[in-house]
């Protein structure tokens, strides 16, 4: 049905409203509220007829329009005595016009971005291609998981961290029992890595207060390495182990919503 194509054009109620205004060659600063409301509702009715789910945001805008229409139709009440009624005199359409202009500005900007993205599509770089070919992304290529690092090195480093903790935990009573899940830790580490791109082992575990937390973090880290989401590297033997964020290959290039 040709309608469906039409319906998906609008990215939101502002977009639809802007479209109706432009189609009718109305001025944003002097919107005939009654007419625009009518057309807007008509559009929603069409959607309903076609059994399309109407996002609540479109209904909110409908309500706003109806409310404005009502306000404009009602005779203006004379200002109550001693009351300064400047606000009352403001045309409610001005707020809508301001919002529409603001929205329109970014809609235009999004078209500029689209054009920029398209011109970049005519250009290839090496890193992007490695990723596109389904090979390890550039960073994974640069830092293969566990490069120059043996599992022994990792475990030795862990022992080191644990040694630094022993006193605080084991000599103090009533340590509040914290619960750490590997999944949560994986998320935390990943977020940190994404921010920092690289982290020292020390940076990662330095803030940990309990042995449990260190162990859970360590397991989470191993899991991330196994999944290819993080990589560890030791540039010098006995040097500090560094962790790297490994950019994920795009699973689906699907468009957003």
């Amino acid at each position, binding site marked *: 049905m040709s309608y469906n194509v039409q319906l998906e*054009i609008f*990215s*939101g*109620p*502002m*977009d639809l409203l802007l479209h109706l205004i432009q189609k009718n060659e109305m001025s944003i*600063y002097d919107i005939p509220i009654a007419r625009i409301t009518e057309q807007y509702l008509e559009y929603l009715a069409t959607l309903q007829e076609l059994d399309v789910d109407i*996002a609540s*945001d479109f209904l*909110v*805008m409908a309500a706003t329009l109806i409310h404005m229409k009502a306000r404009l139709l009602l005779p203006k009440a004379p200002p109550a005595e001693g009351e300064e009624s400047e606000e009352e005199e403001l045309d409610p359409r*001005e707020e809508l*016009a*301001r*919002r529409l*202009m*603001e*929205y*329109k*500005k*970014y*809609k*235009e*900007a*999004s078209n*500029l*971005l*689209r054009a*920029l*993205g*398209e*011109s*970049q*599509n*005519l*250009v*290839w*770089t*090496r*890193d*992007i*291609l490695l990723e*596109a*070919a389904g090979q390890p992304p*550039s*960073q994974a*290529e*640069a830092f293969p998981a566990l490069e120059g690092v043996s599992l022994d090195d990792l475990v030795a480093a862990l022992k080191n961290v644990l040694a630094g903790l022993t006193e605080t935990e084991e000599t103090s009573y009533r340590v509040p029992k914290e619960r750490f899940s590997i999944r949560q830790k994986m998320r935390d580490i990943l977020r940190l890595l*994404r*921010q920092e791109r690289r982290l020292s082992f020390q940076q990662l575990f330095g803030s940990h207060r309990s042995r449990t937390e260190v162990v859970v973090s360590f397991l989470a880290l191993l899991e991330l390495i196994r999944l290819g989401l993080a990589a560890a590297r030791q540039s010098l033997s006995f040097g500090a182990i560094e962790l790297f964020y490994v*950019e994920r290959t*795009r699973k689906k*290039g*699907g*468009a*957003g*919503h």
Partner: protein
Amino acid sequence: MNIHEAKAVLEALIFAAPAPVTLRELAGILQLHENTVKVLVQQLKDDYQAKKCGFLPQEVAGGWQFCTNPQFAPYIAQLGRPPRNSPLSQAALETLAIIAYRQPITRTEVEAIRGVRVDSALTTLEERQLICEVGRKDAAGRPILYGTTEAFLRSFGLRDLKDLPPLPEEFALQLAAVEEEYDN
């Protein structure tokens, strides 16, 4: 090291770097002044352009990298490599534009402009690493503030955020006019 050698080293470095490499990093490796490196890299680019090469160094995301010459895109497309940017939906693109120009910005602020919920657009943009959390707003609920990433700059071929195309001026001016009127 003479100029020719220095340029060859720069060429090799920019080529080998897995991501755009900054002038500062290049200067550090060559032990040259950053401004000298800037001039050399620009010369390198001019050389490539004059020779109409298959690719050339480009400034992007705060660094330099080699890119293929766009005029050969039809040939390269035949290598069967997917293009860099798979298209974004209008909704995602609008959301991205608002974040790019207004960052740091919260979800609610974006929603106020677009008049629509943007959760799924945000998810898409985060998944594609075009935006990320850049902090928390000092307000009730400490909402997440979003900003664009380096991958965003690279995807759109921008040197930095100042490189964003100016917002349509006439609208900005009109807006100012309305606001002034409003104020009087």
